[in-house]
């Protein structure tokens, strides 16, 4: 029986279920101190003075003057300091670090900071400081819109979303062997290495990052752990002792990144019978106070902004701007959930205005193989928009229910969506990710920097190697990411861990198989000793991308989805009760069906929270509802039954036909929910659709 395509036993072992798996906070080192971050309490201004209202004996105290080399988190720009020097740009910005062996004394230490406050800017529409702008032009949208029979316009808004990985951020920095080792809850160990090299310079060349078992990430542990690691390292260098920094939930919610809020405007021209002839789209994203990953979030958001539809004349203008709030960052979907929410709600408004059935409108316009996307990419046979749409309609009896529910408290809606897999454009070529296979006395070991954060990396990679090498699954082991021992396979982000890193591993396995010459790994090892195979990713040679014009093959392939949501509205409280979600998704081929299903179910749940529950209330530039009591994510009682359909349409460039999957499920639920509400006559154009929002909508009507 092949491993690929079967739900084989997971490589995680039983530790997660017995409590034996070690997360960052479960680990201690002799002589370890606890670290704490002192943060700004104003959104904008300058530090005037700092006063310690405690006995500093026994404390290690670090400020910006302790930075060994460069006081900047090295990401896309080097603009965000590890520690504020004088200028404060947002609430909860790190200013000082304290460490002590006694946590009670540490937490009791009081630091008074006086500021010269300045007027903060919170409204992205008023911001003139643009981190990145994008202009995608296909055809001539102004001419096309003049010739359209009908023009439909609309503005759509999405708020912040907080990741709520159940394990808050945490790292431990340990000085050892003339260097420093970081043990931490991280998605991207080599991002941390890059940031630490910049922070530490040549004085501390020996840094190493070991990923601890990680209690969820969702993008939230992509870039921010570099900041925390830098803090722990500076305290460890100054004290000469191991330092652990674990955020509590409030600190994690207040200080770390969130999904970018977005305002998306559509002006769309159509023929009277519902064919899209012009799409003019404007995307504005609130980047917060530093660049972090905003340019690439904007990029993915813009590329997906026209939805899975064909139209010859498209213009997409996007910008991400500065505000005085904590920086926003990576979150599952990475800009696409915002813009796909907008286009899918807009499509249902178009259907309403033209008097066309929303399914029919999508049938007329959905992309097919041979069609060109907004960036001019000609889609290949692995385009499945119509396949997922038709399956979802049939499986849910959509059209009948749509009629039957009209005028009741029950309703049904859908969204059609797609998600590019891997880094955008030339990203994968520039990244040059590598993967390594090592021959061991009993089999092979996978040695990559790709992290297991719950999604099944270990298992899925082992399945690919098993079948490509033709050895028993039990003979494949997976190394815990340790930057001193594994190949840099690039970050664990962008739905690339299966499709891209899995592909390199497949090729490593083929090369290894050839070298084994018919022997088993154990036989070869006994005869000739160990060897390793390391290979670099080669994207498909047909990929053409121009970063200046934003034209070309944005992604090697796309996953496709159609979500149908049925729900009930309480006529008195305006609470929405979801009854059923049907998620039909095509992502090449599932390597491990049970894990793949888990990705769809979990991503759909996160999307339902985004749609209905998860409202970040910002007050004076900081999250005011920064506890799980008043920022609510879906519980067992909020999640309805889910029907998951995994359609196959193999992508020839992926391992065993697989595409990326992790982010796709995040794109569909929010527009499907809002489109269902629209079918009840509720003109909602923003999320989350809380009872308060619905009540206002009813009052307006």
């Amino acid at each position, binding site marked *: 029986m092949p491993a690929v395509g079967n739900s084989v*036993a*997971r490589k*995680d*072992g*039983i*530790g*997660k*279920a*017995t*409590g*034996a*798996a*070690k*997360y960052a906070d*479960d680990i201690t080192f002799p002589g370890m101190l606890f670290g704490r971050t002192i943060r700004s309490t104003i959104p904008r201004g300058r530090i005037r003075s700092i006063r310690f209202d405690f006995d500093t004996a026994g404390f290690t105290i670090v400020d910006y003057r302790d930075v060994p080399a460069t006081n900047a988190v090295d990401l896309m720009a080097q603009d965000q300091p590890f520690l504020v020097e004088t200028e404060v740009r947002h609430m909860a910005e790190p200013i000082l670090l304290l460490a002590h062996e006694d946590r009670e004394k540490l937490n009791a230490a009081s630091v008074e900071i006086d500021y010269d406050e300045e007027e903060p800017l919170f409204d992205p529409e008023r911001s003139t400081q643009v981190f990145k702008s994008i202009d995608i032009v296909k055809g001539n949208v102004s001419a096309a819109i003049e010739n359209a029979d009908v023009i439909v316009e609309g503005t759509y808004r999405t708020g912040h979303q907080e*990741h*709520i*990985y*159940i*394990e*808050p951020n945490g790292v431990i920095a340990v000085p050892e062997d003339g260097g420093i080792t970081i043990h931490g809850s991280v998605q991207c160990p080599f991002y941390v290495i890059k940031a630490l090299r910049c922070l530490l310079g040549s004085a501390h060349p020996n840094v190493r990052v070991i990923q601890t*078992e*990680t*209690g*969820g*990430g969702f993008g939230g542990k992509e870039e921010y752990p570099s900041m925390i690691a830098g803090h722990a390292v500076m305290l460890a260098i100054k004290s000469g002792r191991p330092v652990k920094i674990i955020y*509590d*939930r409030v600190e994690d919610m207040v200080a770390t990144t969130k999904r970018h809020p977005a305002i998306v405007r559509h002006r769309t021209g159509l023929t009277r019978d519902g064919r899209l002839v012009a799409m003019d789209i404007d995307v504005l994203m609130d980047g917060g106070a530093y660049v972090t990953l905003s340019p690439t979030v904007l990029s993915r958001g813009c590329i997906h902004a026209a939805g899975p539809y064909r139209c010859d004349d498209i213009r997409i203008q996007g910008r991400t701007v500065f505000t005085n709030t904590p920086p926003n960052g990576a979150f599952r979907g990475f800009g696409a959930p915002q813009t796909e929410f907008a286009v899918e709600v807009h499509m249902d408004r178009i259907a309403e205005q033209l008097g066309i059935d929303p399914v029919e409108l999508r049938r007329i316009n959905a992309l097919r193989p041979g069609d060109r996307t907004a960036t001019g990419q000609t889609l290949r046979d692995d385009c499945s928009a119509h396949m997922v749409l038709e*399956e979802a309609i049939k499986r849910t009896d959509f059209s009948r229910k749509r009629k039957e529910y009209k005028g009741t408290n029950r309703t049904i809606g859908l969204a059609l969506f797609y998600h590019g897999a891997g880094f955008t454009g030339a990203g994968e070529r520039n990244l040059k990710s590598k993967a390594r296979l090592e021959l061991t006395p009993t089999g092979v070991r996978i040695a990559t920097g790709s992290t297991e954060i*719950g*999604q*099944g990396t270990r298992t899925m990679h082992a399945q690919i190697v098993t079948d490509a090498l033709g050895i028993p699954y039990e003979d494949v082991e997976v190394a815990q990411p340790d930057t001193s021992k594994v190949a840099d396979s690039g970050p664990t982000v962008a739905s690339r861990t299966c499709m891209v890193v899995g592909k390199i591993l497949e090729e490593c396995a083929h090369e290894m198989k050839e070298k084994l010459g018919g022997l088993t790994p154990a036989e070869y090892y006994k005869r000739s000793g160990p060897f390793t195979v390391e290979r670099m990713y080669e994207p498909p040679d047909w990929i053409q991308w121009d970063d200046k014009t934003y034209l070309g093959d944005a992604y090697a392939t796309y996953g496709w989805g159609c979500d149908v949501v049925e729900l009930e509205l309480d006529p008195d409280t305006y609470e929405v009760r979801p009854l059923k979600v049907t998620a039909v998704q095509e992502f090449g081929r*599932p390597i491990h069906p*049970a*894990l793949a*299903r*888990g990705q769809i*179910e*979990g*991503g*759909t*749940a*996160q999307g339902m929270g985004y749609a209905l529950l998860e409202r970040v209330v910002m007050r004076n530039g900081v999250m005011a509802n920064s*506890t*799980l*009591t008043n920022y609510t*994510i*879906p*519980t*067992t*009682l909020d*999640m309805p*039954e*889910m*029907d*998951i*359909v*995994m*359609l*196959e349409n193999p992508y020839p460039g992926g391992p065993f036909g697989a595409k990326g999957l992790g982010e796709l499920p995040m794109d569909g639920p929010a527009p499907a929910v809002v489109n269902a509400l629209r079918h009840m006559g509720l003109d909602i154009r923003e999320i989350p659709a809380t009872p308060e929002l619905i009540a206002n909508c009813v009052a307006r009507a």
Partner: protein
Amino acid sequence: MRFMLNGAVKEVATHPAARLIDVLREECGLTGTKEGCGEGECGACTVLIDGEPVCSCIIPVAQVADAEVTTVEGLNGEHPLQKLFMDEVGAQCGICTPGMIMAALSLGPAPTLDEVRTALAGNLCRCTGYSAIYRAVMKWRGMTAGDTPGSAVVA
């Protein structure tokens, strides 16, 4: 102060107001009990006190004097639910899993799906959307796939 911990008598000398979770993790070295929020909202720290699931992050240790405390370590890795959580992918990242398992232990012999949902309503999971957790629990209780929520096909 003395209480029963996973079947054995435990004496601790901490402040009576110390949080039970800290006593378990730091004094007793049982790190299987996880902290997700510190305010009794996420359930990651669920342990059984005299058989009842409780959030150990909001319980002062004084409250368990002479009581029987069971943590995930008390299951000795032998409870069928533990393997089922892995096999059915009820555990993804795993941080909520020990608390989720402890909460599920309070269920009766043949729970309905609604009873399972209610029993686990105080335990947050951000990875699974809960369906796989129901599948693990229902299977443990000998229910067939037909009783479990949702469905999936690969076509």
